[in-house]
């Protein structure tokens, strides 16, 4: 057996990552919350909670409900707002050796543009992830992310406003995700991440009320993995820019499904709640897989699908 450790390094949208594993936005707070459980420097990147121009209070409670092998959430994009983020959260990133990707959204085109410009001046933020896919907020993502021309419009605008790598995150709640993927590629996205949550609903049969105050919420977790793998495969086939796979990843084998269909990196969401150290186990598992298969580089696995 080879005693040289295999390389997990990948490059996504110009970012050099030490490994392809990062948290999914909204499931890892601003990073600091999980620092007691894992060394943030071991992650490929950190992705922040979704940010907006103004602070957002989010939805009424209950905001979460467990479903079979999944969970619904309607947090409503609660966040401190871009200014408080820069003042209060960014300083913490200074000591880190891991790139920070700021996820953000807007309720109007102007808001998107404004947040993008503010992030330009924050050297601690290496890249941004544009959420055009949040299914929770009525005036929010859903309008942009389910319609190619609207998606194109917001990406074009942010691309012009921004001087950093731009990752665009897609919603799965569409008939044909490749149409949206191509539109955002043409509009200047440097990478695509997919998928965000699938809209779902659960009912408390005794009270006859939705289990989530917002009525519907976004379904995440292992339940959605097959849908996420399928869409990642479709998007990889449809565009030339790199794709980050997201959806129901809990272990190295799950992550490998996305890498094999061609994702250059993956994001881990709900699994962080199940096990705060899940990402470390996934990184270790990827390395073990390479060793077991006699491979020296994770890039030999990426896109290795045989069909």
């Amino acid at each position, binding site marked *: 057996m080879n005693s040289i450790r295999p390389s997990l390094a990948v490059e996504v949208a110009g970012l050099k990552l030490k490994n392809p594993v990062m948290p999914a936005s909204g499931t890892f707070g601003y990073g600091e919350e999980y620092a007691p459980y894992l060394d943030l420097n071991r992650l490929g990147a950190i992705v922040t909670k979704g940010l907006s121009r103004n602070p957002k209070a989010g939805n009424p*409670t209950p*905001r*979460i409900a*467990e479903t079979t092998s999944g969970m619904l959430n309607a947090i409503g994009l609660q966040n401190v707002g871009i200014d408080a983020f820069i003042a209060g959260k960014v300083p913490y990133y200074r000591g880190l050796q891991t790139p920070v990707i700021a996820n953000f959204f807007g309720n109007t085109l102007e808001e998107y543009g404004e947040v993008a410009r503010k992030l330009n001046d924050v050297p601690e933020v290496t890249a941004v992830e544009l959420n055009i896919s949040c299914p929770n907020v009525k005036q929010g993502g859903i309008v942009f992310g389910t319609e190619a021309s609207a998606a194109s419009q917001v990406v074009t605008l942010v691309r012009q406003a921004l001087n950093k790598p731009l990752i665009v995150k897609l919603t799965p709640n569409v008939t044909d995700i490749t149409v949206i993927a191509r539109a955002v590629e043409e509009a200047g996205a440097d990478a695509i991440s997919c998928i965000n949550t699938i809209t779902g609903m659960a009912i408390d049969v005794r009270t006859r009320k939705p289990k989530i105050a917002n009525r519907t919420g976004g379904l995440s977790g292992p339940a959605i993995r097959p849908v996420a793998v399928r869409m990642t495969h479709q998007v990889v086939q449809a565009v030339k820019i790199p794709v980050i796979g997201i959806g129901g990843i809990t272990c190295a084998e799950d992550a490998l499904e996305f890498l094999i269909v061609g994702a250059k990196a993956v994001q881990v969401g709900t699994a*962080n709640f199940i096990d705060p150290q899940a990402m470390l186990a996934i990184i270790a598992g990827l390395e073990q897989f390479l060793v077991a298969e006699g491979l020296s580089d994770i890039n030999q696995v990426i896109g290795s699908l045989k069909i």
Partner: protein
Amino acid sequence: MKNYATIVLANQEISPSIFRMRILAPGFAAAAQPGQFVMLRPALALPTMLRRPFGVFRTGCLPPECDGLPPREYMEILYKVVGQGTKILSELHQGDRIELLGPLGRGFDLGPPGQEKILVGGGIGLVPLFMLGEALVAQGSRVRLLMGGRTRDDILAVTEFERSGVETYVSTDDGSLGEAGFVTKVLERKLSKYPQAEVFACGPTPMLTAVAAICAARQVNLQVSLEAHMACGVGACLGCVVKGAGHSESTPRYLCTCKAGPVFQASDLDWGKATAEAAINCGGGCK
């Protein structure tokens, strides 16, 4: 062919990774022909995925004399079976593996030593009060514990509480143990006697709301421990928020139960109708 819901009689590893399982199956032999097969599945419900939050009841240490092993520290929870997650917990046996994250959250502020302390606990809400009682007694405070419940089955660990040095007063809605009636009745009485006391409460929302109203009316300091649906327990998912004092549609003020709580100063919370609804409704009684 039949559809059996049956039991395993034996399940033995006979060669590396190869097992032989014997299953109770009346009438099977008469029907089975060489080369046929069965479709099997262990009768497990699909289990829950997320962790579940539980108050720390107490901690302890198994002395070496118990079993010759080095001393082993443990922690204890007291929980009620209310749904699938707690059902699965209730079926665990000694030696079964479990994943635990903690201790988490902000606990009680003990306040000045020597002051009168009144603890109010309803049903499973008694859980966090045990370590609190111990700490207050150690601090030199006089501690009265008002234990409430729907029936006697909700009054837990009385002997243990008493042994820890707190005075216990039991009341049940149906009078099956202690005084008949709501624990709030006892609280009113005690507060009339000790108007300077500080109150600590944990229990179902209707009880907490009533306790909060009583304490507010008497301008008595109150800390409450709340429950909320939680995914992460560490402040990352923002699923567990409650409305803080001064919350309104235009100036929303949400606090994370897992991080700013689960113990709050009652005055920091919004005790309006909305909070009572948003908090978990346990059916009015004590779980």
